[in-house]
């Protein structure tokens, strides 16, 4: 019977009468799968609910679009990947085995067209012989144009689910935590470790990715301390929950292990709810710093490959068992159990008791183990020394071919077909060594288990229980208690002697290495279900010399799916080892990388986007800027108005107005964003002499000077005006961009290079609000604003300063000019910034004052030929900028030694020049300077523009730029070209200062 037929009405036909301690039968839940409405119970996963409804076919595979069902029961699941939710909440590739059922959950199968049952993509599978591993490398070998066309079609076939349709509406959060001991995994071993360390008083975090603690104890009937395993788990949980020093976390995956004790965890807070509570995050991303850690992550059962072993109805034996024990679901009606170890016999008893018909137990081992003999005695059909060679059926299993095999899986006789709808397979277990490996722990190979286990030598963290190769329940508990106590002791705590409960678990025998059973020629035996990697692909990789496990992985994509090969990696490399004729450990493993299981990007983002993630710095006058039409831009994290928009004016008209206000009356601009450093100490002047190219020790108190700093390699680094407030006290300004790096640089020099200098540098950018008023009327305005201050040219000359109240606020007034006009920079305590700003605006009316933004400021400085980082682009020297005069020959300073290096004095360097456009022409942004007026010509650039503006003052477009031998080019007519914008202008090369080159206006 196929699930799809049965599912139209809810019958939960495969739910047993009694078993299932993990579900609450009194709480039915209705949910959707494709076009069907189904029912399950509270406590179900989507997988258990689908199985309960007899639904087996749940998806199509990645490459061949083969029908696929549910294979496992936890995060190891390679097959049953569903799309959960819809629209913006649609989440592709969700494991049905992990997703908990909730009311009105909507699940859909993926990777098929037009429907799950009839998928045209499966044609690829039929033609599968044409698509071996590496097939793309051998075909479509073409020029890139044709490949682009092929690729478009190929891409459509890949990719599994659909990405969400829109922005995620849910919220996410971050959390940080510290603990003494982090325990990953809450099975018996993890719980025991927590009990031991918790009792000793250690700060413990125990995290398990399942909704309930207990691990395998929930999935198979075992006994601990005389009671059922799951009941013991509940006892242990209560005991731990009562300890204030222990934090128990379920639905929480330990995802990554990083340097210095950092672990990441992802907590799924709301994925089990229909919709997250609007105040709660859907998922929370944890960063945990732990002093010690224990990995009690259990072991993952592994399959044995046979022909068509990917058919819906082929499942891991432990999963079949778990569905019964925890969810009361029988995954089939008639089963063939196929195993190489004794766990199959315990399982067979439970399954038979629940009503499953067992057609046969196929045991690969020759002879009968004790458990096998007992099962046989109970009347079960045990075929020892046999293997399943093939599954029969297309969209689901309806039989198993069984044949005698040898120890290497080669068939040794004819196969017979046993009817069944379920093949439960157990090829042994692989310890979940992922976290150990992530922590750089090495691996050891245990022949008896045919598995890699953590090598404790040199390992930074302990592993315990099945993760450590201890499969026996009693051993798991003992190891758990031991590592928990050891961790506590190592932290200097006293762990009381553990009371290790008696345990009755499954018999664990050795699981001999058997990875695949010989298949008929042409048949496919899947190793990696998700990426459709077969035993033949591994053979092909070997044949073509992709024999390193890393090449094998990349050539076949083995282990590169969303399950990262949890059920397939070891088998894949074992098969390669066999081909190479080498032992498995000699072949080695591929590298385990975070995360343990994939988690959403948004969990890691944790809502830290927009302004939360990238804070905006605002000046004290910010609200005024916004209220008055300020069009904002980002400047090194600060929000600054570019210009103030006015109804009826274009931005350029508005900028022109602002520029002309400064040139003809007075303007005010918020310059709070400039970096400001307070520099004090007896050696402050000496220090500045060593930092700037020019001298500061001879600067008079109460005066300022413009300075340029170089990098040690001689290139221009930063510039600004520094005022001398007292003999031993300076106020330095830096560019907005470099304010924090200049501070670090100065501290470096003081702390590391010249520790003998007695200087304190303190960043004070945040303390000061600064407004610059500039223009011919600036002095008159300042006189109105600061009646107590003598603002005459004699008392307050260019580069002078004064202190006093401005608009009623105590202020430092620096007279300096970026615009080339009379200008004053007024600095006040930022709490009073808005008061000052409003005061200036109020007083400015009669003087024709306008506020201006960064665009007008830029235009004004271009007119004056002042450079910024656009010109000093990190490759430029003082000489390139024409500033050799500022470089003192008589003193030592940072960068000076490099000035004589050959490249810095080489002929033909680019030099700063001005460009002025022909009447009516407009210099494009980012232009190249060339001799030919042709946007399409290939030609040598003579230089480029660095900043350009329309100068309302001059009525022309102007630009600054860098040009080879620029200073010798003045007067040359060239072209400013922007091919990408399709714009050009005829320009003349001129000296870089366009306006008042003598500087009379600013001194006036």
């Amino acid at each position, binding site marked *: 019977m196929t699930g799809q037929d049965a599912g139209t009405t809810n019958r939960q036909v495969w739910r047993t009468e009694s078993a299932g301690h993990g579900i609450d039968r009194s709480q039915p839940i209705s949910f959707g799968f494709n076009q069907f409405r189904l029912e399950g119970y509270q406590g179900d996963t989507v997988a258990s609910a689908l199985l309960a409804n007899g639904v087996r076919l749940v998806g199509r595979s990645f490459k061949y679009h083969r029908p696929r069902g549910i294979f496992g029961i936890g995060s190891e699941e390679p097959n049953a990947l569903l799309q959960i939710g819809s629209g913006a909440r649609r*989440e592709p590739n969700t494991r049905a085995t992990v997703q908990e059922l909730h009311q009105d959950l909507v699940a859909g199968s993926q990777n098929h067209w037009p429907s799950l049952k009839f998928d045209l993509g499966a044609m690829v599978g039929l033609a599968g012989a044409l698509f071996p591993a590496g097939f793309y490398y051998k075909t479509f070998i073409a020029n890139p144009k044709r490949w682009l066309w092929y690729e478009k079609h190929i891409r459509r076939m890949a990719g599994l689910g659909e990405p969400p349709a829109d922005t995620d509406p849910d919220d996410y959060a971050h959390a940080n935590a510290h603990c003494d001991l982090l325990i990953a995994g809450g099975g018996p071993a993890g719980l025991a470790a927590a009990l031991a360390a918790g009792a000793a008083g250690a700060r413990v975090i125990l995290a398990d990715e399942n909704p309930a603690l207990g691990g395998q104890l929930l999935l198979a009937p075992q006994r601990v301390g005389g009671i059922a395993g799951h009941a013991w788990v509940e006892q242990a949980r209560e005991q731990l929950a009562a300890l204030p020093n222990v934090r128990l976390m379920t639905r929480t995956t330990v995802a990554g292990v990083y340097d210095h004790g950092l672990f990441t965890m992802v907590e799924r807070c709301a994925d089990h709810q229909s919709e997250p509570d609007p105040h709660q995050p859907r998922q929370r991303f944890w960063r945990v710093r732990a002093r010690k850690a224990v990995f009690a992550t259990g072991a993952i059962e592994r399959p044995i490959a046979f022909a068509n072993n990917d058919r819906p109805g082929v499942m891991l034996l432990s999963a079949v068992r778990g569905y019964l024990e925890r969810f009361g679901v029988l995954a089939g009606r008639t089963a063939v159990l196929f195993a190489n170890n004794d766990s199959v016999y315990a399982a067979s008893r439970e399954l038979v008791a629940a009503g499953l018909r067992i057609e046969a137990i196929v045991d690969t081992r020759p002879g009968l183990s004790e458990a096998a003999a007992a099962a046989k005695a109970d009347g079960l059909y045990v075929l020892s020394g046999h293997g399943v060679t093939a599954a029969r059926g297309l969209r689901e299993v309806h039989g198993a071919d069984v044949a005698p095999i040898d120890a290497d899986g080669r068939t040794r006789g004819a196969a017979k077909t046993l009817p069944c709808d379920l093949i439960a397979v157990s090829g042994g277990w692989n310890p979940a060594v992922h976290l150990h490996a992530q922590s750089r722990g090495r691996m050891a190979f245990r022949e008896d288990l045919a598995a890699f286990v953590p090598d404790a030598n040199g390992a930074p963290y302990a592993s315990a229980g099945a993760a450590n190769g201890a499969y026996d329940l009693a051993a798991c508990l003992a190891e758990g208690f031991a590592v928990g106590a050891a961790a506590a002791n190592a932290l200097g705590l006293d762990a009381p002697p553990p009371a290790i409960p008696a345990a009755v678990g499954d018999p664990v025998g050795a699981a001999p290495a058997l990875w695949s059973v010989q298949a008929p020629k042409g048949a496919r035996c899947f190793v990696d279900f998700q990426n459709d990697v077969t035993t033949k692909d591994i053979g*092909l990789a070997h044949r073509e010399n992709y024999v390193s496990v890393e090449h094998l992985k*990349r050539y076949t994509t083995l282990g590169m799916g969303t399950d990262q090969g949890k059920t397939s990696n070891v088998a894949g490399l074992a098969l390669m080892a066999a081909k190479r004729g080498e032992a498995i450990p000699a072949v080695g493993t591929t590298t385990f990388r975070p995360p343990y299981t994939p988690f959403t990007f948004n969990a*890691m983002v944790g809502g830290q986007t927009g302004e939360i993630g990238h804070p905006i710095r605002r000046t004290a006058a910010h609200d005024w800027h916004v209220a008055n039409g300020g069009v904002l*831009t*980002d400047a090194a994290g600060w929000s600054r108005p570019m210009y103030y928009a006015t109804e009826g004016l274009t931005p350029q008209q508005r900028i022109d107005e602002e520029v002309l206000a400064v040139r003809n009356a007075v303007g005010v601009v918020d310059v709070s964003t400039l970096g400001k450093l307070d520099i004090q100490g007896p050696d402050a002047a000496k220090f500045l002499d060593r930092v700037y190219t020019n001298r500061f020790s001879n600067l008079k108190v109460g005066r300022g000077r413009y300075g340029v700093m170089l990098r040690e390699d001689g290139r221009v680094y930063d510039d600004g005006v520094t005022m001398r407030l007292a003999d031993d006290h300076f106020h330095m300004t830096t560019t907005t961009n470099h304010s924090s790096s200049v501070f670090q640089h100065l501290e470096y020099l003081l702390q590391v290079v010249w520790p003998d200098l007695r200087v304190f540098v303190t960043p004070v950018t945040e303390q000061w609000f600064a407004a610059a008023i500039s223009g011919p009327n600036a002095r008159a305005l300042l006189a109105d604003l600061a009646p107590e201050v003598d603002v005459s040219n004699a008392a307050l000359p260019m580069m002078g300063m004064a202190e006093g109240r401005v608009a009623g606020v105590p202020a430092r007034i620096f007279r300096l000019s970026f615009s080339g006009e009379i200008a004053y920079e007024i600095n006040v305590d930022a709490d009073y910034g808005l008061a000052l700003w409003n005061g200036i605006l109020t007083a400015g009316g009669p003087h024709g004052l306008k506020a201006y933004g960064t665009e007008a400021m830029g235009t004004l400085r271009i007119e004056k030929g002042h450079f910024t980082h656009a010109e000093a682009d990190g490759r430029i020297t003082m000489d390139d900028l024409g500033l050799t005069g500022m470089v003192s020959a008589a003193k030592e300073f940072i960068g000076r030694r490099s000035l004589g290096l050959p490249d810095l004095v*080489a002929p033909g360097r680019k030099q700063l020049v001005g460009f002025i456009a022909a009447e009516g022409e407009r210099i494009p942004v980012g232009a190249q300077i060339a001799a030919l007026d042709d946007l399409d010509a290939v*030609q040598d650039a003579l230089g480029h523009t660095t900043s350009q503006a329309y100068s309302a003052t001059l009525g022309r477009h102007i630009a600054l730029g860098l040009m080879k031998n620029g200073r010798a080019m003045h007067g040359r007519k060239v072209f400013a070209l922007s091919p*990408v914008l399709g714009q050009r202008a005829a320009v003349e090369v001129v000296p870089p200062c366009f306006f008042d080159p003598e500087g009379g206006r600013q001194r006036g």
Partner: protein
Amino acid sequence: MSRRYSIWALARNALSHHENWPKAWRSPEPKPAYDALIIGGGGHGLAAAYYLAKLHGMTNIAVLERGWIGGGNTGRNTTIVRSNYLLDENAHFYEHSLKLWEGLSEDLNYNVMFSQRKVINTCHTLGEREATVRRYNSMRLRGIDAEFLTREDLARLEPAMNLSQDVRYPIVCALAQPRGGTARHDAVAWGFARGADSLGVDIIQNCEVTGIDRDPVSGAVIGVQTTRGAIKAPKIGIAVAGHSSQVAAMAGVRLPIESHLLQAFVSEPVKPFLNTVVSTGAAHFYISQTDKGEVLLGGELDGYNSYSQRGSLPSIEHVIASATEMFPRIGRLRFMRQWAGVMDMTMDGSPIIGKLPVPGLYMSGGWCYGGFKATPGSGWCLAWTIAKDEPHPLNAGHTLERFRTSHMIDEKGAGPFPKAH
């Protein structure tokens, strides 16, 4: 059976259950001596060997690889190929490399899946727009393709992109190189290996070079010590990326290189919804979707010297926060795997391709994050330099000596701070 790959060869082989495919490359025992050795079996080393054999007739040569070929940065990069450089030396070199890419699959008879799906650079402030336009204009003057994209263009090219002005760094515009794109990283190593092997080159894996032997009189190289014994050769090319300092030091050469960590990560695979490669200066990340469907992301260096090849958190947290802002639909996709590579960061951010101050010793290294796109060009130039004992004009500027004159090829103007490039 012919060694050539094609759909017909594939069909023929399907009939024999693919049991007759030959090795893509041999794994011979090292000979005691060769005419030249290439140290490093990444894309660059393999390409150098291929071009030496194919274009310069030097077939008695070997590539020595410490581990498995392509397992270094070649196997761990975000696969972006472009030639949108500002400075002369770089622009011409990378454009040459891009042209080699355009013929590579056919030349190698191996589909390296070079997909010219367009590389887009978004701009988020007017200043950034200006600087980017300037760079792309410089490309056009050199005859390299470059185009300006408005926000409307972007909406058409990348419907998943958030073009709202209501985000922290709204997009102003973008510039693009249409011929830029991606290639399948592993295939590049394997294709060059197969190509070189078929011309007689020995590719020797699991062979770590532990010493470089020099003639005591002339100082010239005479061979190497390896974990598989000594091998003689009068010419040795180093192409070991993050290990350049170690290998050069074996010949007593110090380099202006530091090794830093660069990370990348992928999401689970989903159906295609990203069409191009998008990179952004403001938020420092780049994103594309592979042909298998994973969203592939990378960002900035971790910022301190490292050989760990191991991912960390801070830098990828930044990348993913910025990327989900630009492409909100990726937020609900899952983070599947992260890894890192050891980047050979130079003091100016540009590579060193040429002769070292030891006769017979050559190198191609210092690739910073940009070396995948350089693979064919680097191999081609290194091969030329080894064969002729002098650089080709394309790599004449990328000398080690430039650091003696301070002739920096510094695209970013970041100064002698490797982590800043």
